[in-house]
């Protein structure tokens, strides 16, 4: 499966994602500069963590208008897979490819920690390799990770089984303990925890592998 990692000025998890996908999983993986207007035929787009455009104005607000994001939106509308991690999740919300927004942590503190998240739905390209209810230990590192959406949107997410990950012990005040959601088409996924930083035992956890294994399993089924 061909992966493309979008690089913005200020991305800082792009190489971690590359390592996980290319070295740990042996997949053809390339970088895509934010000014590129095409995706070079990749199957799955990764929006990595970091501080795109210095987080100026709002997290993800400027990145949303990059040429590459237009190509990502077209890719998503055509059913292509997109995963946004941390800042990537914030960008997907600003782009309206995912509902809601990520605001300042309730504690006002930047949180850098390992947390437990529960897989709430295995009905997605990103969680199908997990057991329902499986608890993963994944790192988080964010100042704006508090998920917010209007009550009607939260209800829709619950009703349509679109909350894929919930925090076991909510670290940031996210409504409904949401750590990761997918779009209605279930092909776009955003999450605040970093699976790529938990893709080898030497990193303290390899639970993040389940996310990437799910994507590869979906590709194998599609083939």
């Amino acid at each position, binding site marked *: 499966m061909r992966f493309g990692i979008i690089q913005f000025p200020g991305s800082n998890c792009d190489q971690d994602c590359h390592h996980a996908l290319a070295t740990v999983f042996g997949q053809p993986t390339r970088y895509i500069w934010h000014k590129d207007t095409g995706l070079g035929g990749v199957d799955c787009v990764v929006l990595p963590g970091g501080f795109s455009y210095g987080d100026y104005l709002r997290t993800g607000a400027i990145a949303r208008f990059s040429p590459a994001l237009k190509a990502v939106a077209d890719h998503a509308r055509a059913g292509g897979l997109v995963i946004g991690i941390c800042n990537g999740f914030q960008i997907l919300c*600003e782009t309206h490819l995912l509902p809601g*927004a990520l*605001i300042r942590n309730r504690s*006002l503190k930047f949180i850098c920690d390992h947390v437990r998240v529960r897989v709430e739905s295995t009905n997605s390209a990103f969680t199908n390799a997990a057991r329902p209810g499986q608890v993963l230990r994944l790192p988080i590192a964010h100042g704006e990770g508090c998920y*917010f*959406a209007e009550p009607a949107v939260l209800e829709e997410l619950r009703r349509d089984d679109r909350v894929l990950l919930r925090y076991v012990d909510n670290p940031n005040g996210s409504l409904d303990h949401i750590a990761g959601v997918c779009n209605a088409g279930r092909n776009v996924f955003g999450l605040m925890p970093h699976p790529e930083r938990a893709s080898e035992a030497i990193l303290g956890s390899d639970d993040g592998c389940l996310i990437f294994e799910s994507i590869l399993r979906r590709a194998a089924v599609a083939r």
Partner: protein
Amino acid sequence: MVNNRSFMKAKIIVMPKRTVLDPQGKTVKHALESMKFQGIQEVRIGKFIEVEVAGTDRAAVRQQIDDACHKLLSNPVIEEYTFELQ
């Protein structure tokens, strides 16, 4: 001279919606209370943005600023905005 001015200044205020938690505002409210300021009911913290725009057609500039507020300067999911032109 004022009439010859060929630009306008938009003064934009972006505030978190009432339904959105504002932990900064809450923290500042507690600080004010602990400093014994009396009668503090609520503190909410938003952003103030100034934009200078070339043009003399007030309606057109107003429309453009409104569009910019909606698309970039605020996120309608969590914020609301007001602005005045000078």
